């Protein structure tokens, strides 16, 4: 009886065999989280660049050797820098990158609220009694004209 637990992962052009599904999950997660430095807008999973192939093989071999995903990520960052992480790490240097958009959104909404409030105040003028009567007369003559038509 040959019940093989081998699973195959197709990424790029090569096939990697894994002896257990957990390893495969780690592999897939890592190659999706690491950037291809040649085609910089792709991760290792999508890129067909030769360096991406080499790095996928490296990730595979490190998993086979039993290294943890943290160790593999550290390996890559030590050689290529933080840019190899597709998702930038949350450090003091990247604080502006992470929080900036939310800050700008918050300021934008704030301005909007202030602007709307100001506009509302402009329209809240009360008419004096004379002006009220004049306005009502005008409205009556306009509707009389309508009836006559």
């Amino acid at each position, binding site marked *: 009886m040959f019940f093989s637990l081998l699973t195959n992962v197709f990424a790029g052009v090569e096939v990697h065999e894994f002896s257990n599904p957990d390893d495969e999950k780690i592999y897939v997660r890592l190659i999706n989280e690491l950037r291809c*430095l*040649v085609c910089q807008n792709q991760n290792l999973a999508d890129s067909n660049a030769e*360096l991406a192939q*080499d*790095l996928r093989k490296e990730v595979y071999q490190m998993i086979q050797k039993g290294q943890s995903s943290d160790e593999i990520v550290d390996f890559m960052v*030590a*050689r*290529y*820098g933080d*840019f190899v992480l597709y998702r930038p790490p949350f450090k003091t240097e990247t604080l502006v990158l992470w929080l900036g958009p939310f800050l700008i959104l918050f300021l934008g909404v704030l301005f909007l609220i202030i602007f709307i409030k100001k506009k509302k105040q402009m329209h809240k003028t009360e008419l004096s009694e004379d002006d009220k009567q004049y306005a009502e007369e005008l409205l009556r003559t306009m509707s009389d004209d309508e009836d006559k038509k």
Partner: protein
Amino acid sequence: MWRYLLPLAVFIVLVVFLSIGLQLDPKKIPSPLIGKTAPGFQLPDLLDAEKTVSPDQYKGKVWLLNVWASWCVSCRAEHQVLNELARSLGDVQIVGLNYKDASEDGQRWLAQRGNPYVANAFDLKGKAGIDWGVYGVPETFVIDSNGLVQYKHTGPLDWQSVQQDLMPVLQKLTENNRAVQN
């Protein structure tokens, strides 16, 4: 006045950021190796498989590691710069890392275009390349006398970057070296 000045101020800030950003080259990724020990390797020499090339052999000296390949088109333009540098740099030696190449092609290439290298590590699988964070060929590293990487140039060397960036680094490192030795 403020309602006109504020959008203008925001616009100017955006323009400043954009003009800085458009001048940056995303292909030039800063190397995390700067200030760290040069990654080790033990590789056969391209021109003499019996000889071993390793960064340890250059301890105590300031030297350059140039990553190249015969299949790399931009390496051709850079090679003339390297040939000239080998003649004029004196104490500073240039070691080659022949990256993912076929040995006959690499040997032929050097025979045709000149050999500025004192030694040439033959990195068939590209493992040493990965350790040095090579992602584009050619790349050139400066290693100081303590074996620390002090500078990386991504892409082919041209005279402008040699004069503006490379030479000042080399001068500073060789001065430090001489001061320590005296």
